[in-house]
């Protein structure tokens, strides 16, 4: 079948909007075609994400539907590794939801039999968290659709994400081993700040992450990390009913801080063992810290010391009474890394601005497409051939002349001029309906018509409204 075979061919993105063969030196007031549209990298990244989101597998051998979820596509085929953390083989599928049309990631623990029904209720608590650095958990249910006892955790689906494990320790790790320090300090801080932010949200909700493993932290775009697979441990470990064990939650939270330290340290030292093994000997930790201290700043070392060591005596919580508070806490940690929080906030806001201006550009383009379509719908319609409103005295004649003004410029020698900048400038002004006047010239070059973009806009709207009236 033509349709299906075509489907599996990867798209040739370079054919979409080709890049120039060589770098062009542009003056500040010059743009190439690319300059008018969404930057190629961002567009391609999002295109690939949507493509991944929509991908389906016609014959997967998986259940056709799972509750409201259908069109399951396995995302991870490596089950062995995944059983390490939860004690069960775990699978991830991408699926569409019948109830809201969105795409979700389903994490299945194979062979899990729910004994304590209260345990699954903690999922509700996780669902309530709102952190931009946590993959949101929506619900969990047990199912026999796979022919066994399975439990399914439903998360937001982040297409094309990779785990920190893949990025730093995997076969195709992003950072070259040879270079030292392997990972730029800025990257480490970014991880640290974002994961601290996730922990802050979790701890504030009186929960604990419990799992901070490189294979369970995903990069959903460059420099954007999210804690995934949250909430599972609470259900699986059986003692999920938080309310019944208030005393131990603070211990788990202490562990979280320690584990965060291990995670960052293992990346800093490019040593997976540090994060893979929960019981790393303290000497190894101390040695690694010292090693990391050679490549990274004092600030980072201080932060890691706080997470990994006993509570440093000099660190005193500001604004709290208990100077001898025995426990480390995420709030205190945030204070230590405050300058980096500010840096991250600043760059996040900057990126916000970039995205907003890119969105602005594309929204404009979207409106221009509609505007151009309107123009084409109304211009040169055979129906209007003998309509007086389109004659040289009618006001709709303006639209024809404006089209000429936009697209039919010539140079002194009468040769066509193709100036996309001019086109976009004119159309944007028309779309905004600005007060600037434009001079149109009749085709016979006998008279000129001076009209503002605002009036032209009204004219387009009126004509188009006439056209699309149900009864013509």
């Amino acid at each position, binding site marked *: 079948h033509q349709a299906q075979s075509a489907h599996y061919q990867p798209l040739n993105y370079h*054919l979409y909007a080709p*890049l120039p063969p060589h770098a062009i030196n542009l003056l500040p007031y010059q743009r190439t*075609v690319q300059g008018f549209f969404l930057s190629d990298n961002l567009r391609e990244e999002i295109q690939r994400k949507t493509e991944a989101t929509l991908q389906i597998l016609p014959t997967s051998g998986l259940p056709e539907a799972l509750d409201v979820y259908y069109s399951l596509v396995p995302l991870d085929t490596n089950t062995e590794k995944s059983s390490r953390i939860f004690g069960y083989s775990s699978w991830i599928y991408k699926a569409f939801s019948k109830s809201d*049309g969105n795409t979700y990631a389903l994490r299945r623990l194979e062979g899990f039999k729910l004994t304590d029904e209260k345990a699954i209720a903690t999922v509700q608590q996780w669902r309530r968290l709102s952190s931009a650095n946590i993959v949101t958990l929506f619900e969990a249910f047990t199912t026999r659709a796979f022919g066994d006892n399975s439990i399914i955790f439903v998360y937001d689906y982040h297409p094309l994400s990779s785990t920190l494990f893949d990025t730093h320790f995997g076969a195709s790790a992003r950072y070259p081993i040879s270079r030292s320090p392997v990972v730029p300090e800025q990257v480490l801080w970014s991880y640290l700040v974002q994961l601290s932010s996730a922990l802050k949200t979790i701890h504030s909700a009186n929960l604990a992450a419990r799992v901070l493993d490189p294979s369970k932290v995903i990069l959903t775009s460059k420099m954007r990390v999210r804690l995934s697979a949250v909430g599972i441990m609470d259900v699986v470990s059986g003692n999920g009913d938080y309310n019944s064990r208030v005393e131990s939650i603070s211990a788990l939270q202490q562990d979280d801080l320690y584990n965060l330290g291990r995670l960052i340290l293992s990346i800093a030292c490019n040593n997976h063992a540090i994060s893979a093994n929960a019981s790393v000997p303290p000497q190894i930790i101390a040695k690694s810290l010292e090693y990391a201290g050679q490549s990274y700043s004092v600030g980072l070392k201080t932060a890691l010391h706080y997470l990994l060591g006993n509570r440093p005596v000099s660190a005193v919580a500001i604004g709290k009474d208990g100077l001898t508070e025995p426990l480390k806490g995420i709030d205190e940690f945030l204070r230590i890394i405050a300058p980096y929080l500010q840096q991250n906030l600043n760059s996040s806001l900057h990126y916000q601005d970039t995205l907003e201006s890119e969105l602005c550009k594309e929204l404009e383009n979207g409106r221009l497409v*509609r505007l151009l379509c309107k123009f084409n719908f109304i211009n040169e319609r055979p129906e209007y051939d003998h309509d007086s409103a389109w004659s040289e005295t009618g006001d709709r004649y303006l639209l024809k002349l404006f089209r000429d003004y936009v697209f039919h410029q010539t*140079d*002194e020698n009468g040769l066509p001029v193709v100036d*996309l900048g001019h086109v976009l400038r004119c159309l944007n002004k028309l779309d905004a309906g600005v007060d600037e006047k434009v*001079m149109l010239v009749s085709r016979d070059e006998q008279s000129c018509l001076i009209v503002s973009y605002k009036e032209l806009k009204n004219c387009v709207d009126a004509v188009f409204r006439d056209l699309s009236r149900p009864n013509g």
Partner: protein
Amino acid sequence: ESSQFTEFGRQIEWNDPVIDTTPSMKVTEDVPLNTVGMPYYKEKLLSAWPPDMVFNVARPPEPIDPEILATMKMVDFVGYAPFPKRHRRYVTESLPYSNYSKTESKTPMFRSEQDKVSAQLGTSRTMEATTDPVESFKKVEIKYSKFGVEDFDFGFYNRTPYAGLETHLQNSYTNALLQLYRFTPLIYNFALKHVSGSCRLEHCLLCELGFLFDMLVKAEGQHCRAYNFVRCLSSIPQASALGLLEDEASNSKQNPIGAMLQSFNRFLMERIGQENRTKEIESSELINNKFVTQLDKVAGVTTLTTVCCGNCKSETHRRATTYVTDVVYPKSHESSNGRAAGNGTDSKANAWNFCDILQHSLESNTNTRGWCGEKCRRYQMLTTTKHVLSLAPVLVLNAAVTTPASRQLWCQKNFLPMKFQADVGKEGLTIKQVPESTVPDEDGNISEIYELVGMVVEVNFGPADNHMVSLIRIPQEDVSKPWYLFNDFSVQQFSSAEALKFDYVWKTPTSLIYQSCRSSRTEYNTQWKDQMDTSLLYSQAAINFDTSLRFEYSCLAKEEAPRAGTLVAIDAEFVALQQEETEIRSDGTRHLIRPSRLSLARVSVVRGDGPKAGVAFIDDYITTKDNIVDYLTEFSGIEIGDLDPLKSKKSLVPLKVAYKKLWLLLNLGCVFVGHGLANDFRTINIQVPKDQVVDTVDLFYIKSRQRKLSLRFLAWYLLNENIQTETHDSIEDAKTALFLYKKYLEIREQGGLSAFDNVLNE
């Protein structure tokens, strides 16, 4: 919150592939455009543009031609106008990404840059000024480099032998009219005759006009400034009251500039008529119980106005002489002098030609209701009749174009006649156009043939460029281009066709001058040079309050009377009336807009030869009413109080006295020695021909290093003298320059000038 969504997009591929299955989309809906997907592709998409195409995104909107806007008629929201067809429609620059600054390339490089370039290239590269006639009318701006105004290439704008006038002066809008008068021989002769006389009036416009005309002639095509003239103008209270002064503070002119110039024209003529009258009263002839001044004979139009009461028929007469006649345009319903009345056709308006209108402007017949004071003693219908009694050889007109109809008239081809004949007879005035080839009857007394001298034209290219220029006909060998456009310091030759073509929007006539073309009246007179009143040179003329003061210089004695070639040494000091204006950017660049405005504060002239060589005979301090922002004491030696008649211990004179002394020396043929005189003369506002200047800066100029040596250094090096130890003293400086010159002559005598060069080079 759990609304059901369609399983969207999925249907296409699994369902029967019939084309129109997706629901129709409204254009206005906010549905993402990518809800319709792409088919699979293996080739470059059609939507891909050449990736190396470059576009300019910073081009300002093109302004709509003001001519079109002016003729536009609004119908609903659309303005309609005929397309002027200067080019095809929608023509743009061929390369959309070419440089936006097209106009900037038309200004010349600074002279310092040219020197640099020519030094690099080994050849001098001169740019040609624009040849586009419309472009020539656009406002020209002086640009200042860090070397000041001398660095600006005025020569680029003027390759003619006629001097232009600089802008960047308050009231420089008068430039155009001043040029027009300078080329009206009778006015020129009139002004120079006056200025070479004994006029002692401090603020005399006619004197200043004379100084200015002389300067313009001596400049032989170099740029001049009407600095002293405009300063004199602004010191006259009436000028300010009439709104003739440009407001320095705001660049925007409150009055329409054309109207302002016409008022100025009237004011100027009346003023010089009046100024002249005060001196000429004894010699004036008594004609018909009225004093006739010299100006009346040059440019006066004498009229008799008769008011006749329609009821009692009693008449009153009034006799008046005016110098400037406003053109009065017929109202559309009026017929042309009754001649076309019989036809009664639509072409009435077209029947009006310039001569008819002119006649109509000079003589008129109006009926108005007014007070009859003779017999009726009540309001009656009065008939006012104006008759011309006599015309003078110069006829000055203000075009007074205010209405669209009058504007239209001027735009007609050949509207303005080059020559017309005027007869003042018993019947009254008759004016008729005569062919350009008409030669005046040199003996005849009755009819005069008037010929167009030139005109002042208002140029309007929008609010940023609304200025005055003059077009003046100067007969030349080159018959094809007898017209000269004086656009401030830009002067260019034009053909008659181009000069006489008016434009509805941007080119409107403002003032015109016709002059009788009898040969006796078209010659520039030089007799004044032999009749100069030089008495001022032999007196002090100080105006200090304390009359007991004695000054350190000695006036010339009669036997020392300067002659052609007499050597004098000069030096001048200045104070600042206005600080320089600059624009400064945060990246450190600096842009001089106007240099500081200086005023002559002291001038010293020293005898060059004879037993009293080196002794000053002029050391004038100049009083001024203008606000002095900086005395520049460090350089000028002038201190606060020095220029105040009540306090000063120095010999204080009005600017005109000091100036006139120099002007007399100049016209007696003296040779001026000094150090760096170009700048002094510029600020004094006098033009000294090259062969009357010896500048020690140029004598000791090191060409190889392009270095000018200071007076102080030269004095120390060549004369073993320490000068300028504390402040500058212009007598000392003038003396030093004189001795340097003598030293120079000495060295040259000994043939050691090349050796001297070597010494200086060390």
